[in-house]
């Protein structure tokens, strides 16, 4: 690259979101994200969603740079329109594949999209037959590394929660109910709240269900248990 080709690339995230936690249950997927935008360690903007409804079958949640995701959101929106032009509705598997290629290609150009994406949805195995639809969670990192999972916690949550979420999931496995899955998510957020500086107690739980389709979450709040502060106080 010579001087004429120099371009400014954003190699550091600025306005960011932290963990995404997602979990499969019997007939769908639940996804939890908090609603704060951090600027470094400052809680810069509140009440900002990190879940995007792509269509009735797909919901995307993200961590990382918000500006990069807004770019991605537009790319996805146009991809969905392109599919519609050929009378197709994009499914979670296809979108996951598309985004994997996109993020990998971008990072190969040394211009990564600074997001960890969680593509949640139900895959219609047969057209117009909800009976055979299967829940789907796909993860993509900013490097284009992608995989499918039954449960996931990203960001600092990856260090704190994956084992806890897996343990909970294993108790019931494929028979986990939606309510149980959501309870795991809420407990998980409580843990990040105790251990992640940039996690917030205001959050939303979105879901994709085989019969209901995408249901966007409403804002919720948790406080947590602070009784530890009564005992941990050495006044000398």
């Amino acid at each position, binding site marked *: 690259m010579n001087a004429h080709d120099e371009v400014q690339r954003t190699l550091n995230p600025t306005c960011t979101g932290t963990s995404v936690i997602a979990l499969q249950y019997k007939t769908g997927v639940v996804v939890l994200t908090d609603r704060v935008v951090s600027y470094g360690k400052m809680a810069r903007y509140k009440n900002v969603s990190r879940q995007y409804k792509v269509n009735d079958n797909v919901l995307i949640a993200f961590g990382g740079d918000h500006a990069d995701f807004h770019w991605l959101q537009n790319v996805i929106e146009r991809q969905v329109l392109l599919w519609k032009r050929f009378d197709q509705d994009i499914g979670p598997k296809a979108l996951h594949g598309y985004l994997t290629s996109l993020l990998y290609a971008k990072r190969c150009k040394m211009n990564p999209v600074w997001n960890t994406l969680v593509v949640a949805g139900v895959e219609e195995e047969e057209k117009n037959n909800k009976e055979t639809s299967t829940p789907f969670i796909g993860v993509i990192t900013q490097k284009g590394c992608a995989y499918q999972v039954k449960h996931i916690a990203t960001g600092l949550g990856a260090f704190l929660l994956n084992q806890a979420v897996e343990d909970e999931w294993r108790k019931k496995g494929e028979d986990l109910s939606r309510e149980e899955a959501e309870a795991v998510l809420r407990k998980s957020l409580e843990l990040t709240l105790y251990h992640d*500086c940039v996690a917030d107690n205001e959050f939303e739980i979105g879901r994709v269900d085989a019969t209901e389709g995408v249901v966007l979450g409403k804002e919720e709040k948790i*406080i*947590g248990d602070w009784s530890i*502060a009564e005992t941990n106080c050495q006044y000398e």
Partner: protein
Amino acid sequence: MDTMRDEKRKAIPAIGFYPQEEISTGTTLIAMEYNGGVVVGTDSRTSAGSFITSRATNKITPITDNMVVCRSGSAADTQAIADIAKYHIDVYTMTENKPVTIYRSSQIFRQFLYNYREQLSASVLVAGWDEELGGQVYAIPIGGFVSRQRSTASGSGSTFVQGFLDSQWRPNLTLEECKAIVKQAVGLATFRDGSSGGVVRLAVINKAGSQFELFRPDKPGFPFVQTPTPHLSFPPHIEQVL
């Protein structure tokens, strides 16, 4: 100073840890004079990068019955300084057989912070009450500059509330008024500052001595912040809910 060997101090970007950043208290510290003493307030978060190593830390360290010090910067540095300064002040109190003034105590802290300014990453608020000058707050930021303040904020959360404090202080504040202001200031700072959070700890220092109070988010009296009702986050044509 953090003594981890240089070659061992690898960055862990995933948790926002970079070796040039200390494992530090982040912190919001507030102190304010009222008509019979001082009120100090702090958060309870200690972090390394984005990771919260302790969520219920006590950052108000009593030095004497009528003086506390609020610490920010490297946890290890400030703890060491507080211990050493306390030792010196206690020795002076015994040899002179009367309490060391808050002003002189602040100068004892200054000596360490100034003489070792290149080695240390520490800043403190010295707050207390004595017969001579009543309630006093001395701010000593990194470098060892000492100044007496009516009210002040220190630590990473201070930038968010200095203006609020400036607008609130007035002569002859009552204890209850002062406590309300300090508590609200800590609440406002922890609301915006990721390095501050957890519970609010208050200390009132006056002629009677020091009283400590705790405000938990899960108990009444915690200074929550209300924000305006928000707009939607994605472009208006996208389906979304509040």
